[in-house]
């Protein structure tokens, strides 16, 4: 794909120009020679898959990280942005996906945090600050009491507080990193009206989003990144939804996986049936079946409800309604202990937060869920634990010096293998895996995929939730797609293409 829609050289109306930006992280090139410009006063959308490099690029602009090569030209001058403070001084503000507000402080205190107006004796001039807040709010056409504690606001209102903060800082570049992922439709409409108002005031807005339809509604131009490479910038009214999605998906082969999916015919025996399962705002009316010896992928964007669905099936959270049926038997899942008793296992998304016991060694991490194997009448059978741990260390090739090594000193891939071992020790029938290979280097990934296939051979049924499309396409027999808490598509692997899957996941 050649860069067609951008003319060479720096134009007068180019506010920001990225020149040959390259950024490497251990094992990956996050940005690979990225060059393009953002014009003054436009709404410029930045799109691409998870891990395409959008956030990395914006973090460079925000001073959070430094590029390895290349430079940022700001208002015609090559500018160093060594830290977030420098970005702010240069009029750049970022509204992050995860809001950075203090919930216990009021709106005005948040907006002026770190640059409060003080009167004599260091007393805060709340009144004066509140007046300034009102001015900013008025310019955005919003009504919000500056004295309200932020914790009482909705996510949308909190976002507006962040935007107001950026405006009161007199920023003329506003970066919005997936601002509407947590917003309802009407809230999104409101946000867009505000963004257009800001644009009319001459503020330049860089808008990162996964929802391509919305991008088409709001943006003037669209730039596409894929795997750290820049693919072009297009005027929104001169391009099409399909064209952008094709670009995002790409036509590249799944080389990093070294092999394509081998179609396996799973048995027709249903091991798990989920019927009309709903939980709050997270997901609604989910119905699907999992067959014996099947790897079922669930793909969707962040916040589509995939993780919450798995958590509910595993008993980490209660469903509002619906049924979970295992081998024809309806089960009331009250806790993970219930799920484990019925043959479930789950690798959670957050390895350090909800998976590993970093204070413990390898054997203790492996044995902790199979107390029935390693104990008798409450007393631990130390030898059984050692045997169990050694068996798995050998079987799935965990690289450890000894089984009494602390897990915190292991690599990500080996830590994940420890967790897989923990679950295999419970002899599960249904294995739920949430972002199984997140943060794991390519070599270990391949090993983990091998394990996955072996488990299927051994008769396990697996649900693999992933944000990585190549992974889903290469490993899964069938792919479910979730969007906004709904199940929107169900493909057999043979029918699925990257483009098709993305189209379903992104639309809306």
């Amino acid at each position: 794909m050649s860069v067609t829609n951008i003319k060479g050289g720096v134009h007068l109306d180019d506010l920001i120009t990225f020149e040959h930006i390259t950024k490497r992280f251990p094992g990956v090139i996050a940005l690979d020679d990225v060059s393009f410009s953002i014009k003054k006063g436009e709404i410029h959308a930045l799109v691409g898959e998870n891990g395409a490099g959008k956030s990395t690029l914006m973090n460079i602009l925000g001073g959070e990280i430094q590029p390895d090569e290349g430079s940022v030209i700001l208002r015609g001058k090559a500018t160093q942005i060594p830290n977030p403070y420098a970005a702010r001084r240069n009029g750049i503000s970022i509204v992050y996906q995860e809001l950075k507000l203090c919930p216990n402080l009021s709106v005005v205190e948040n907006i002026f945090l770190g640059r409060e107006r003080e009167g004599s004796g260091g007393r805060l001039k709340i009144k004066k600050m509140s007046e300034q807040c009102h001015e900013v709010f008025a310019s955005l056409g919003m009504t919000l009491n500056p004295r309200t504690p932020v914790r009482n606001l909705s996510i949308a209102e909190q976002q507006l507080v962040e935007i107001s903060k950026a405006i009161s800082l007199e920023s003329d570049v506003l970066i919005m990193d997936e601002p509407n992922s947590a917003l309802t439709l009407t809230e999104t409409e409101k946000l867009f009206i505000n963004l257009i108002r800001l644009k009319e005031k001459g503020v330049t807005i860089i808008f990162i989003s996964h929802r391509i339809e919305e991008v088409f509604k709001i943006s003037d131009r669209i730039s596409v990144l894929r795997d750290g490479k820049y693919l072009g910038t297009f005027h929104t009214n001169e391009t099409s939804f399909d064209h952008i999605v094709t670009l995002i998906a790409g036509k590249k082969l799944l080389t990093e996986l070294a092999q394509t999916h081998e179609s396996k015919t799973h048995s027709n025996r249903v091991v798990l049936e989920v019927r009309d399962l709903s939980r709050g705002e997270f997901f609604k009316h989910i119905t699907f079946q999992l067959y014996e010896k099947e790897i079922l992928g669930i793909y969707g964007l962040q916040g589509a409800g995939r993780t919450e669905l798995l958590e509910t099936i595993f008993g980490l959270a209660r469903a509002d309604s619906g049924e979970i049926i295992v081998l024809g038997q309806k089960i009331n899942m009250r806790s993970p202990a219930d799920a484990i008793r019925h043959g479930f296992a789950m690798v959670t998304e957050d390895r350090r937060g909800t998976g590993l016991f970093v204070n413990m060694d390898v054997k203790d991490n492996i044995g902790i869920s199979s107390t029935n194997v390693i104990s008798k009448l409450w007393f631990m059978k130390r030898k059984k634990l050692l045997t169990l741990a050694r068996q798995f260390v050998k079987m799935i090739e965990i690289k450890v010096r000894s089984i009494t090594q602390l897990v915190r000193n292991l690599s990500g891939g080996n830590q994940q293998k420890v967790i897989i071992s923990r679950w295999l020790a419970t002899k599960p029938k249904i294995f739920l895996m949430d972002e199984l290979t997140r943060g794991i280097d390519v070599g270990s990934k391949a090993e983990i995929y091998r394990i996955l296939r072996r488990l299927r051979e051994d008769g396990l049924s697996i649900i693999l939730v992933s944000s990585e499309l190549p992974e889903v396409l290469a490993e899964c027999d069938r792919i479910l797609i979730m969007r906004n808490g709904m199940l929107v598509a169900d493909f057999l692997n043979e029918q699925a293409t990257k483009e098709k899957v993305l189209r379903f996941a992104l639309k809306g």
Partner: protein
Amino acid sequence: MSEKEKQYSEKSDITAHNNEGRNVQDIAEGKRKSAGFISGVFKIREIGVLLALILLFTTFSVSSPFFFGLENLLNVLRQVSLLGIISMGMTMVIVSGEIDLSVGAVYGFASTIAGILMTNSISIWLSIILALACGIAFGAMNGLLVTYARIPALIVTLGMMNVARGASLIISKAQVISTNYRTVSDASIDAFLFLGQGKLFGVIPMMSVFLIVIAIASYILFNTTILGYHMRGVGGNAAAARASGINVKIIKISAFSITGLLCAIAGVLNLSFLANVQGTIGQGLELDVIAAVIIGGTTLIGGEGTILGTIIGVLIIGVLRNGLILLGVSPFWQILVIGVVIIGAVGIDMWTKKRTV
């Protein structure tokens, strides 16, 4: 470790060294490992506090002619017995990721209620059983409020501390209750007083015997049962523990209940030792207990800590107090020195951990 296991671990070391995939850190650690026995000893988790104890021991032995004698050392062991018994429970609570400030007050309440019951013509053994039941009840209540009502342990046990203390003062009407031949009619009074005042074989104080038995039982519970294993898991990462199918609530309630029971045992022993009790007994004991546990290497965030470390921590406090008294140092200085030891012990612990991680 059996001979066979040793062979295995050596073998697995060799295979690990031949492994292409190992990283630089592994190599460095492998080298460190081969440095032999001395470095092996220094890898024992409790080595820091153990060295501190030995240092104190030697210092006092040299500087005071009275310190290093069988009688004095047995005396130290008796003096720390109540502190030690309660610290066993506190170790479990802190390792499970919680804290218990009510131990001093529960200890006081158990002592008081036992005293009142037996002086009101209730059989001694029944009185003891009821006192122990009260201890368990207080502990279980702490656990229930922390887990089911989700109130932070600091607040629950601070409240419970006042509840138990208030209850002790109410039922005793703030009077001293004596338990001796005149006030207790039960014929078992001799046997009861023996528990606190007697000596096994005429040498070892019974209170020390209780400490040793309870320490061994705690060690077995903490190191060889599923409950101990799960306590470390729950304290290390409660979310992961839940996702691993552990009933986090039951584990925490158990830790609190065991602590309550141990407080009550200590309370009953003290009643026997002193042959009287007041509602104010054990005030401030919780801080000594927490100090002993912390000095012993248990971290307040949970997950890390050993019974052995706590025993050493208890002995450090005991030896320090005893030695300073023998040297004629003012009690006010003792308090100050213990404060310095707490900070120093944790400081050294953090420093050594930073080096090894």
